[in-house]
């Protein structure tokens, strides 16, 4: 310690300046993201008069839920669409995690011919924008009779397949972080490889897998473009919100309520997975 104190003042200044600049940059970035989010949420709870008053108060003086009430009732499709969005997200997770998770396990544990090429190729599906194939995809689903069904299977398939590649990489990194000897010990003491996977590996991987699931959930929950193109009478919340907010141009308080309503679940989930992100990406080396 005493040696550190003896360091010349110049070095101290340099360190101080460096730290200050770092903190300024971080603060700037945080403000860039947080200021719009903050205004989105306070505007949602203000009356129309207050929203358009000057100067704009930094906190709603007359706290109101009217905007939300209006948003939820103006379009009869909204309430069913919330449920549908949850269906889409959960089905997407089931597809992505069951296929992607098992594939991720294989990439983490086994050596096989063409492994390197395969693990790269699973990302190909991410290399072009989803919109580019949305129209042909819509046509395809129409022919299959799956277009715009009440249960949004077409959307779930679309998101699910799009997420498998990423899920493979995430889950492989989770499984790699679990010592293989833990499984082998279980196999020696009485389980099959499958049994060891379910009794040992899966419980240990659960927090990471949950994080991966929520990550997928947010993606499916927030997706607008494909949802708009692939639905008509049975839209998801994202699609309905988009239409409603677009139609409410000039009513900032209503638009904010729609945006806040949409963003809230995603925000909550993000805070939940925060703790697991390190585990999710910590061991990336497949």
């Amino acid at each position, binding site marked *: 310690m005493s040696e550190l104190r003896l360091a010349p003042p110049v070095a101290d200044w340099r360190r101080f300046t460096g730290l200050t600049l770092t903190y300024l940059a971080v603060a700037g970035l945080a403000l860039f993201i947080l200021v719009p989010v903050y205004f989105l949420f306070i505007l949602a709870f203000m009356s129309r008069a207050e929203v358009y008053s000057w100067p704009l108060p930094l906190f709603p003086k007359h706290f109101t839920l009217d905007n939300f009430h209006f948003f939820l009732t103006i379009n009869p499709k909204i309430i069913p669409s919330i449920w549908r969005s949850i269906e889409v997200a959960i089905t997407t997770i089931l597809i992505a995690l069951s296929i992607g998770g098992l594939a991720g396990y294989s990439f983490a544990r086994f050596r096989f011919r063409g492994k390197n090429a395969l693990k790269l190729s699973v990302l190909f599906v991410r290399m072009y924008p989803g919109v580019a194939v949305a129209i042909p995809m819509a046509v395809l689903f129409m022919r299959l009779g799956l277009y715009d069904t009440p249960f949004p299977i077409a959307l779930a398939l679309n998101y699910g397949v799009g997420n498998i590649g990423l899920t493979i990489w995430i889950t492989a990194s989770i499984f790699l972080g679990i010592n293989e000897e833990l499984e*082998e010990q279980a*196999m*020696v003491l009485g389980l099959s490889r499958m049994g060891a996977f379910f009794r040992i590996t899966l419980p240990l991987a659960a927090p990471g897998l949950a994080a991966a699931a929520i990550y997928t959930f947010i993606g499916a929950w927030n997706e607008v473009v494909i949802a708009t193109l692939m639905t008509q009478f049975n839209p998801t919340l994202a699609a309905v919100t988009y239409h409603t907010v677009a139609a409410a141009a000039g009513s900032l308080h209503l638009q904010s309520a729609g945006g806040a309503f949409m963003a809230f679940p995603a925000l909550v989930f993000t805070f939940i997975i925060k703790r697991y992100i390190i585990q999710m990406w910590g061991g990336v080396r497949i």
Partner: protein
Amino acid sequence: MAEVRLEKVSKRFGKRVWAVRDFDLRVEDREFLVLLGPSGCGKTTTLRMIAGLERPTAGLIYIGERLVNLIPPRDRDISMVFQSYAVWPHMRVYDNIAFGLRYGRRKKRLSKADIDRVVHEVASLVRIEELLSRYPTQLSGGQRQRVALARALAVKPQVFLYDEPLSNLDAKLRIQMRTELKYIHEQAGSTSIYVTHDQAEAMSMADRIMVMREGQGAQLGTPNEIYFRPANQFVAGFIGTPPMNMLEVELEEEDGGIKLVSPHFGFRLGEKTARAVQESGVRQAVLGVRPEDVTVSLEGGDFSAQVFVVEPQGPQQILSFKLDETLIIKSLTSADLSVSPGQEVWLSFNRERLHLFDRDTGVRLN
């Protein structure tokens, strides 16, 4: 119980890498056999093939009378202790130990009370009874090691497999655990196969040692055979601390006997050794002498040399002598002998314990 037999077992990784090649081994019932060798010699792969965690590329593996090549690990009636201990972090110590009793297929289903009895029995054997309700993260490395041991014991297997179980413990605990493991082996009355790269561990625990090198057996024998009659230069150099002195020598016929000649010394070999050398016809050899067989004297000996370095080791000391630019030989002597670097002393070799190896093949001559 069971003997374990390996016949011409080979394991190839990828296209070219032979981890184990044409390996034969017969482990007697209730024997404590140690597979010893430097890293990469194939000892762990061999153990994993016996466990069923690796499939041999060729060869047959028997446990008891049963050919087990196609039998999955869980049906082989074995236990294994891993280097990482492999204690499951999401289960209490109790459940870790009871695991094999609950899910094992080898024995008939045990009642809850029976499982409880066995768990307490093995936990008291390895002295962790007070830890049963804890989670592994709350345990020290040594305690986890004991949990792994208790778990292996609980299923009362025919064969115990150990994969460097002590290498993650600190030096003091390691020596203590050696004694306990040997005691447990005797209590359990099973066959044990133990992999290590630590020769002191091997020497102190094994009934027999199989020294491995590059996927093949270099020598199989009791610790004393391995130490006092190494079959080849590799085993001779691998076993012993400090390592055996190796000196290149010529063997010359002289008056019907054999004289051993080096630039620094020369002497006639004893009759038995000479006969063995004559039969082999080898004239270029390597002479191996263990440091404790190099006697240092101030009065006289085979040849004289200057003390190079003195390394005290408590009751003993290691003396080094530089014979020429590349050749240093070491002697392990009593610390009572007081010498200092630069001093001229006499060295002689214990004739009863000379090791002669063919310089080309490394095979023992005498």
